[in-house]
């Protein structure tokens, strides 16, 4: 009856009535990005509706906030305006910056209320994810969906090039050899490339860090947000390898290719292999018409792949009631059942180890060996580089690697410039921390 009334009296009154009747329900908002291709936004809205039905005392609103970078920007803006969102699905490597700028609530008190220690809480998640979610033993993020770079390859292209689809490349040498065999020319046109990878901002820094890590590198200081190693031999070697693929072996197109161009080329058979996030698994599975498989990122010195994806965070500036409601939502979203369902829907792997013990997850893994490879690679995953001013620091690297991809700079020159830029961006922090002497 009440609802009927509201409908006739118009939107303004309806809103007032809602607030009136739902006095007990705590209103919270969840900022969420959609970072990879696919229908993630509608699924998130559906999930939050289910949550609201199961929790009548909480009313959560899912707010779509664009890419990871946009979400970061909007969260900062909201915090500054005094309207902190109750929960944000934040790119996992931005968490450190929120800790540095003191804009994030430690989750330890909420975990303690549930009778757990921070270490016990983090033990529920894959080991590779723990570093990006914690800082000096305190928990700041709850891993929500995570990914690593993955090698996708076309079975038909492999057969056509005389390669065995059961034996994907394992080392960089195998990788280069396979790419050479896969590359096909017709006149002055390349009709099939050996390998393609996204070279646009955000993706390129992540993939380059992965190559540097397989080359034996640390890439960044895991314990301190003011250091990054762009001029280390392991990073230079990784960028030289990219240069080799493009300009010497000519098995990868020159210049910057975006993720859409990479997947389109893969679907059309214009590239034999591609490097893409595990988060795109479902998108590839739905759109690839011919058989394809996935493999670990090939190694140079060690098997390694950086973690990507996002964690749920609780920004500062929320009332205790909203904090408690947000914590309920965070725990619900990262519960094995929900995390497993989201993983099957998107392709991201579920950060909760227990999600993989569920029967529906077990049968999904046997049906989809491409998703199993992604989970197996987790044993070799590393944390995602995180520094002060991380977006600018990452972009400095990407501008350098893009110059190499375009044949405008040598890896050494490009990385020296990138290091200089990155050091400049981190200087305010470094000056006040590592370089600050006790007075």
């Amino acid at each position, binding site marked *: 009856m009440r609802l009927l009334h509201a409908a006739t009296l118009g939107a303004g009154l309806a809103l007032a009535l809602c607030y009136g009747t739902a006095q007990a329900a705590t209103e919270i908002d969840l900022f969420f990005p959609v970072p990879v291709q696919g229908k993630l936004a509608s699924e998130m809205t559906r999930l939050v509706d289910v949550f609201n039905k199961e929790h009548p005392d909480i009313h959560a609103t899912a707010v779509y906030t664009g890419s990871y970078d946009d979400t970061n920007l909007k969260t900062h803006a909201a915090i500054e305006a005094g309207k902190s969102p109750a929960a944000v699905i934040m790119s996992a490597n931005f968490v450190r910056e929120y800790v540095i700028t003191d804009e994030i609530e430690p989750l330890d008190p909420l975990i303690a209320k549930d009778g757990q220690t921070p270490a016990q809480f983090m033990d529920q998640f894959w080991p590779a994810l723990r570093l990006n979610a914690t800082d000096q033993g305190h928990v700041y993020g709850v891993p929500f969906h995570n990914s690593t770079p993955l090698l996708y390859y076309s079975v038909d292209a492999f057969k056509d090039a005389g390669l065995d689809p059961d034996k994907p490349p394992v080392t960089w040498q195998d990788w280069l050899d396979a790419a050479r065999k896969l590359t096909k020319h017709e006149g002055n046109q390349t009709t099939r490339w050996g390998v393609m990878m996204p070279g646009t901002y955000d993706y390129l820094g992540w993939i380059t860090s992965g190559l540097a890590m397989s080359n034996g590198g640390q890439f960044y200081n895991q314990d301190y947000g003011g250091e990054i190693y762009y001029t280390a031999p392991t990073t230079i070697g990784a960028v030289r390898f990219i240069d080799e693929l493009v300009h010497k072996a000519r098995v990868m197109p020159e210049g910057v290719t975006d993720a859409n161009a990479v997947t389109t080329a893969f679907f059309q058979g214009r590239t034999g292999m591609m490097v893409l996030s595990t988060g795109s698994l479902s998108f590839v599975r739905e759109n690839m018409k011919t058989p394809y498989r996935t493999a670990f990122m090939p190694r140079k010195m060690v098997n390694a792949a950086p973690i990507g994806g996002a964690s749920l965070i609780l920004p500062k500036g929320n009332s205790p009631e909203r904090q408690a409601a947000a914590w309920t939502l965070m725990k619900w979203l990262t519960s094995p059942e929900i995390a497993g369902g989201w993983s099957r829907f998107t392709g991201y792997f579920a950060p909760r180890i227990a999600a993989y013990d569920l029967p529906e997850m077990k049968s999904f893994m046997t049906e989809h060996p491409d998703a199993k490879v992604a989970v197996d690679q987790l044993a070799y995953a590393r944390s995602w580089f995180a520094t002060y001013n991380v*977006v600018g620091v990452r972009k400095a690297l990407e*501008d350098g690697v893009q110059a190499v*991809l375009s044949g405008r700079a040598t890896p050494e020159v490009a990385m020296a410039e990138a290091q200089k830029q990155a050091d400049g961006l981190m200087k305010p922090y470094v000056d006040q921390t590592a370089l600050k002497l006790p007075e």
Partner: protein
Amino acid sequence: MSSTTLPGALARPTSAVRRRPARARPAVTAYALLLPSAVFLLGFTYWPVVQVLVGSFSVRGFRIAPHWGLDNYARLFADPHFGNAVLNNLLYAVGTVIPSVVLALGFAVGLRESGRVRMAMRTLVALPMLIPLVAAAALFVFVFLPGGGLLDWYLAKLGVASHNWLGNPSLALGSIIAITVWKNTGYYMLFFLAGLAGVPQEFLDAAKIDGAGPIRRFWHITLPLLGPTLGFVAVIATLNAITQVDHVIVMTQGGPSDATNLLLYYIYQQAHQNYDLGLASAATVVSVAALLALSLASLKTLERGMHYES
């Protein structure tokens, strides 16, 4: 498109003078009528302008007390990315303003007469202005896809090798310029069509009788009489070249290697990616000052060659 002034206002500056008696009304009514707009202008335009000016002199850092100084400007002029953005923006301005204005004028002169075919052509040329820049940019990402995109697909039929239109630093700015020209030409054409309607037919007929060909008629009658419209369109086009970066955000994010970084996008990056509000404010002040100087200079230069009909 943000402008609301019509070229007619520029074309007939004398009309306001003639109507002077009508303005001798009690000032209270006038101010009361102006008040609503004034409140919004003060709150959303002038106050932010003051804040940006003040902010550009406020030096902030990590965990240090803010103080006043010129550090932001010193850092701005030392930043190679800023120099690069200025250079890109100059190229972009020249590359978009001249072709789109020349094309718009050409289309307007060619399509000014009535007739079904001409009307259809006019609609076609003006159509891109109905598409929001963001939507157009999102579409063109696919048109420009290397290898599989529409552009490369047709070029391949002509035997042209595929190009990485947005991913090659030498081509990316050119691709961005091409879309802008495609998008804005029709809009500017409308202004020229309006301006052409004000060119008296008897002048053209007289010249025709005296034996002047179409080119001479254009150079000596049409173009001089279009002076005010041309001046207006040139200023609008220059403003657009600095204030519209939607397609850069959608298509390239200023890349590859900073090749498509324009001033406004540089400001956005400093403010939102690096949280460097001081540097962003300084860059804003410098670009707005330059833009203002440029607009005034171009209006002055064009005004000298303008012929007003009276």
